[in-house]
């Protein structure tokens, strides 16, 4: 049954793509943009079902359809493989078509930098960002380090990250520079393994999204030292930001959407409007922001575009410092 649904989705999305191409041509030909969007939108999820990106993309899709923000349907389609390269390439291929959409993720930046993808952020049009996910620096409750300043006393620290090039690795680098202490990052194969290594005392510190550590902090097994956003997180009011503590570190994961390169300006404006309504809606707050303890923050296309360039540059610098790329 599942497969039939899937193949039905496939053929529908094929039809949508074909339609999108025609529509793209029409848009380019004349001022027929008043009708946009007149076909279903394909939302490509470059990762498997059930993962973080999948939940994010599907929740955005749900909120848009619940609030009836657009007159057509959003058809989510998982295209996993190649650390996001397969799905993002499929989006970028629809150059100029405002009928294919995708969310950004860490792999959106890192896979192209690692040489694993034929497309990079330059092949996309940023639409808008609707939230940011901060990272919490934590230590085991039994750790001798009670504050961020205590970390300066250490001769050397170890941290666990998921993947060599990741937000946690980036934050470890930033913390190391800010505090002047050596921090070696050990790459693991998943957040669960990092958590095990931290609780088992095999690494000293770790960076997690709030929803991953809140239960541990509440249970008293981990202690939060600092949060990486520019403002405190509501769920962890007592935890100061890095900047409050005098460390110049602000880095969050931006939740935003992109379309292929060269989509008409009207489509961008249209989606800025839609996504602004999503970001301000109660449904979005309830279904995503509160559940994952994100920081709600709307960025328009221009600001989101600038944030994309900045994020990509951060990763590029990190990879150069680590000797992964030249």
């Amino acid at each position, binding site marked *: 049954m599942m497969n039939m649904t899937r193949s039905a989705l496939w053929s529908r999305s094929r039809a949508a793509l074909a339609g999108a191409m025609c529509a793209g041509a029409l848009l380019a030909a004349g001022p027929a943009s008043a009708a946009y969007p007149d076909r279903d939108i394909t939302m490509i999820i470059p990762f498997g079902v059930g993962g973080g990106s999948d939940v994010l993309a599907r929740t955005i899709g749900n909120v848009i359809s619940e609030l009836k923000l657009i007159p057509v349907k959003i058809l989510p389609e998982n295209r996993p493989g190649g650390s996001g390269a397969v799905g993002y390439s499929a989006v970028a291929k629809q150059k100029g078509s405002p009928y294919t959409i995708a969310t950004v993720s860490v792999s959106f930046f890192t896979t192209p930098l690692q040489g694993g*993808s034929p497309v990079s952020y330059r092949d996309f049009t940023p639409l808008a960002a609707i939230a940011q996910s901060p990272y919490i620096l934590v230590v085991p409750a039994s750790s001798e380090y009670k504050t961020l300043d205590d970390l300066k006393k250490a001769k050397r620290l170890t941290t666990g990250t998921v993947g060599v090039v990741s937000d946690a690795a980036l934050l470890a680098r930033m913390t190391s520079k800010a505090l002047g202490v050596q921090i070696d990052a050990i790459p693991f*194969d998943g957040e669960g393994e990092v958590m095990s290594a931290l609780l088992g005392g095999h690494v000293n510190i770790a960076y997690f999204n709030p929803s991953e550590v809140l239960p541990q902090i509440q249970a008293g097994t981990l202690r939060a030292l600092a949060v990486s956003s520019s403002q405190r997180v509501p769920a962890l009011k007592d935890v100061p930001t890095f900047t409050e503590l005098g460390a110049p570190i602000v880095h969050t994961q931006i939740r935003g959407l992109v379309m292929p390169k060269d989509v008409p300006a009207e489509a961008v404006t249209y989606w800025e409007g839609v996504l602004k309504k999503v970001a301000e809606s109660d449904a979005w707050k309830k279904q995503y922001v509160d559940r994952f303890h994100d920081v709600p923050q709307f960025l328009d296309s221009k600001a989101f575009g600038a944030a994309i360039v900045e994020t990509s540059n951060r990763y590029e610098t990190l990879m150069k410092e680590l000797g992964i790329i030249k």
Partner: protein
Amino acid sequence: MEIFGLLWDGIVQAAAPNILAGTFLGIIIGLLIGALPGLGPSAGVAIMLPVAVGFGGTAAIACLAGVYYGSMFGGAITSILLGIPGDAPSVMTVLDGYPMAQKGEAGRALGMSVFASFIGGLIGLIGLVVLSVPISRAALAFGPTEMTALMCFALSLVSVLGGRNVIKAFVALAIGFWLGMIGIDPIAGPARFTFGQMDLFEGLDFSVVAVGLFGLAAMFTTLTVSIDKRLASFSLRSLFPQIRDAISSRWELFSGSLVGFIVGVLPGVGATAATMLSYAVAKRFSRHPERFGTGIVEGIAAPEAANNSASYASMIPLFTLGIPGSATTAVMMGGLLMIGLQPGPLLFVNNPDFVWTVFGSFWVGNIALVFLTLLLTPALAAILFVPTALLYPMVLAVVAFGVYAIEYSTASIFIAVLAGVVGVVLTKLDYPAVPLILGLVLGPMLERNIRRTLIQSQGDVLIFVQHPIALTLFLLTIAALFIPVILKLLNKNKIPADEADI
């Protein structure tokens, strides 16, 4: 015992119609997904996630868990009947299951896999209920250093699986190690051996390679023999499970369950490695190791008990500490979040009803699976009456779909076919395929943990002997490698005529 009171309440709660419906849907989907070559438990749980969440609360998690342990029952079906592993944790079941089916004992073999799955599940469940808190804390003691030692120990045990020619076994193992390195280097970053192919960036999917290397290779090989060759004689009796097999292989059932449980609790190791280790343990300590791989029930008992036991054990860190130790439990954790529960150390404290009801549903599901699969066994075993000329094309189509469905990628089909061709070549040249598979599963874990340890110790190799658990495991490794050699030398002196075994 207060625990058993709580468990009994849980089982009673789990008998509520909605939870029962969730459990049954889960186990049936799990059976199907397990039996479909290629798709395994993690894909199955992910596919069911959006559906299950709609059931709400306890029924949702009972359903997802049902998919997980149900697939452990289902995986054995194609492994035995067709020699195609239904999912990664049932690869080892091929080794004795398929030869048994070819001998006309398919029903017996399937029956054994059901008994083993049930016993393994039972022991896993008892461990889950009684030991979950202390054992999850103990598992945290396994860091990269201890994992490295454990992998060395595992490799020393599985060295018995190489077959007669040691050199050829090591060559196959090395090929497996190499295949395991394809993809992005998980520790340093750059891509290795991908030749610019985006589809190789994430590395080879183990189930895809296993399906090709065992299943497709077996089918390709039959192309060279007369297709109308009748299978060995069948009797009606051969279609039915035999309870005495379970009694005669009680030791393999017990050791398999135990190994599966211990390995399953450890983060990042998984049920597949558990089956390999349990098969090796069973063979090493058997009185007739030479008969393993020729089609004996003991060879099915050990891995099938291990994978079911491991599936329950791997849920322990999730429920007690809020740590997903495998891809499958990570998806289940997503399910917990989506139904509004916070997986973490306080789950037991804040939601005891939920946890015990879910555990109760495991017991209900495990028992239901036994009856379901035992009833199906004769019908399934009768598949082998279908003429090869009809059966193989159908199977090939199903395999192609199953392999494609893992990542919706045609590249996976290509890789499976390629692995099949490699499998044929290996067979023709008398290289064993099992060490290759071992290398592919254990190699990456060994490599990653060695490198993690050395980052931790800043390159100091002495760390491996400074950790007591690691040191113990290394000493056991040395013992496992050298004691058989020494014994063999001693025996040889006594009985110089015994050369047939070399």
